């Protein structure tokens, strides 16, 4: 405690000030020889300084004494306030739009870096082949139409998704035209507003398309277009936080669980796990916090499979349920921003060709974003988010230019990459509880349409957790049953 030591020194020099004529002080206090000579000429102001100094020292000592007493908040150990609490009800792993949507709906009912949400192209469409997917999109569009009623926070700015109502345009060749017709019927039955166009009608409607090879086109009239994913994520986050959800940053590195061994009808022993706590490691540090919880929601997007592996899903013997992994893995997709001054105008839809190439307008200045899903065997490496520009030259541009001749002259202004939470089994979402883990709810595997389904999926998972079953939309077909029984439910309109 240096304050103690310093005080007698000051007292000594004070004595020197008061008896400034005594020269012997110089020998007595060797540490401060100069103060004596200074004090000879400026005794008045230095006395004031000395008094102020003394007061400051005393105040400091008083504060230190008060801190040491039990009622203060100071401790000699460093506390990291970023640690999650020791005990919570529900832990949601994954801070993207699906995770925050679930958080918002859970609270309502009582009441990012690598996140795919903000790297998304931001489109929403009802042109799917499965009725469940169509209903999810319609419900989400409904939610977005009334977004300020749902996510408006008192005295804050209203939410503006910057929704462009441009619609999606799917093109089909001879081979898949019949699938498109079937899908059209399913979509109309489910309530989506879609229209079919023949090649002549297509050419009349969009003169900039080269209709060579196109047999049929499907065009969305309402509730389709694109919006700003960042705004939606932040709106969910803001409202959920205002309802009482707390956010913590960290990485889940493990779980603590107990296993109940049950015997099946065929006298086999099956271990059903129940998660007791989640081990959350702080960013850039070895410090971690085990968080006790009742329920865990896996909304970790592209990394959901890895998360489930921490509980042993997929690591068991090959012919048992625990040997079937959660079939979600990251798949890297590139999005390129191109500029073309003579490109299509304001009514450019989100065009998706049967070859897989897609593009949409961005802004009003002749900018478009485009990309294509790679072939099955040519998936890029997923260890980072680096963009392969050669891919654009080889795979995207030729197909794009053949469909829209104006795009023969364009310039790539920028590009980015993001991960799809790709469901390798059937490219559809997995929503529900895993049979081998009692309290882990999954909401993942949407393979590129997680963002557009996030409001409806969030509501569905909240109903599942709090009411025990789906209430508004029946999504039982998206459960784990189809994966464990190896019966895929394919979505045929995946981009």
């Amino acid at each position, binding site marked *: 405690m240096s304050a103690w030591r310093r005080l007698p020194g000051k007292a000594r020099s004070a004595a020197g000030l008061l008896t400034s004529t005594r020269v012997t002080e110089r020998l007595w206090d060797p540490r401060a020889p100069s103060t004596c000579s200074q004090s000879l000429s400026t005794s008045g102001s230095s006395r004031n300084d000395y008094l102020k100094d003394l007061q400051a020292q005393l105040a400091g000592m008083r504060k230190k004494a008060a801190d040491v007493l039990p009622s203060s908040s100071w401790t000699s150990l460093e506390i990291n306030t970023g640690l999650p609490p020791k005990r919570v009800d529900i832990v949601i792993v994954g801070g993207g739009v699906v995770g925050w949507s679930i958080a918002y709906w859970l609270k309502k009912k009582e009441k990012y870096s690598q996140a795919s949400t903000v790297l998304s192209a931001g489109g929403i469409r009802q042109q799917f082949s499965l009725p469940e997917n169509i209903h999810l999109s319609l419900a989400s569009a409904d939610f977005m139409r009334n977004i300020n009623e749902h996510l408006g926070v008192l005295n804050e*700015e209203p939410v503006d998704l*910057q929704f*462009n*109502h441009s619609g999606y345009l799917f093109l089909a060749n001879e081979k898949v035209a019949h699938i498109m017709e079937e899908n059209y019927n399913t979509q109309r039955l489910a309530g989506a*507003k879609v229209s079919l166009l023949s090649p002549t009608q297509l050419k009349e409607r969009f003169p900039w398309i080269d209709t060579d090879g196109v047999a049929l086109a499907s065009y969305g009239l309402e509730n389709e277009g694109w919006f700003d994913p960042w705004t939606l994520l932040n709106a969910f986050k803001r409202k959920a936080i205002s309802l009482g959800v707390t956010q913590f940053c960290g990485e889940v590195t493990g779980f603590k669980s107990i296993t109940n061994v049950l015997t099946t009808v065929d006298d086999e022993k099956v271990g059903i796990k129940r998660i007791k706590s989640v081990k959350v490691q702080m960013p850039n540090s070895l410090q971690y916090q085990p968080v006790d919880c009742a329920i865990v929601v896996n909304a970790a997007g592209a990394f959901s499979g890895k998360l489930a592996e921490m509980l042993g899903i997929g690591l068991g013997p090959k012919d048992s349920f625990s040997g079937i992994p959660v079939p979600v893995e990251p798949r890297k997709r590139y999005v390129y921003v191109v500029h073309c001054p003579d490109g299509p*105008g*304001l009514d450019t839809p989100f065009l998706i060709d049967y070859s897989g190439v897609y593009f949409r307008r961005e802004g*009003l200045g002749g900018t478009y974003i485009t990309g294509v899903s790679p072939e099955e065997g040519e998936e890029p490496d997923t260890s980072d988010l680096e963009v392969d520009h050669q891919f654009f030259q080889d795979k995207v541009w030729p197909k794009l230019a053949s469909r829209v001749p104006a795009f023969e002259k364009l310039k790539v202004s920028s590009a980015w990459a993001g991960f799809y939470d790709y469901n390798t089994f059937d490219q559809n979402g997995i929503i529900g509880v895993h049979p081998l883990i009692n309290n882990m709810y999954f909401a993942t595997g949407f393979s590129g349409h997680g963002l557009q389904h996030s409001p409806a999926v969030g509501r569905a998972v909240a109903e599942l957790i709090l009411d025990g079953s789906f209430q508004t939309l029946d999504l039982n077909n998206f459960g784990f049953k189809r994966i464990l029984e190896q019966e895929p439910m394919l979505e045929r309109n995946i981009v």
Partner: protein
Amino acid sequence: RQWISSSASRPPLVSRLLLFLTQRFYDVEMLISWKSNFKRSLGLVWSCCDVWVSSDFRFVGQSDWFRANRRGKFSWDFLQFKNTPLEEVDMSHTLVNYTGLTNLATQKQLRTLRLRGCPEIDDWFLARLHIFQDSLEELDISECPRITTGGLVALRNLKGLKLLNVSSLPRVSSPGLVIILLEEMLPQCQITAEGYNHSLRGADEEDMESRKSLNV
């Protein structure tokens, strides 16, 4: 609903006190949101009556409009034409919104729709107008405060449109560019767009010419 703008002067003491309490107590927040919900639902009820009384319409084959006269009285003669489709509807300055459009959905011969200065009309309403894509020829959505560029894009389906009025839309950014793009999108349509301050910086002559050609 309150839009907070940074340039607003300091609100009165009562509002500030309420805001202070709202941010600290959930009960106060709930009470305040009840109050705004109550006002809004009152507004909805009132607006249903309001829309009915203040909108004007004309039937196919008739040349007279049915309007409320100066004292607000509405003639009941229109009931004679219960089964005749509507041709022109003027709902300017009413509180009609997306849900209200359901009432007009059956009118497949609607040619004119006037919605000047309607505060509840937003982009989603415009997207729903595709139900009139075969018949609509004239649309007036000027002075509607909630329409943005994303909603004007939704007019892409109205291929039969001949007259469009998009004057004074406060939330449309870069109106000059948007109007030119709209012209390209709807080549058969005459677009009226007044009340915009096309700030004359640089391309002066081009702006003046485009404005002249639009106001034909």
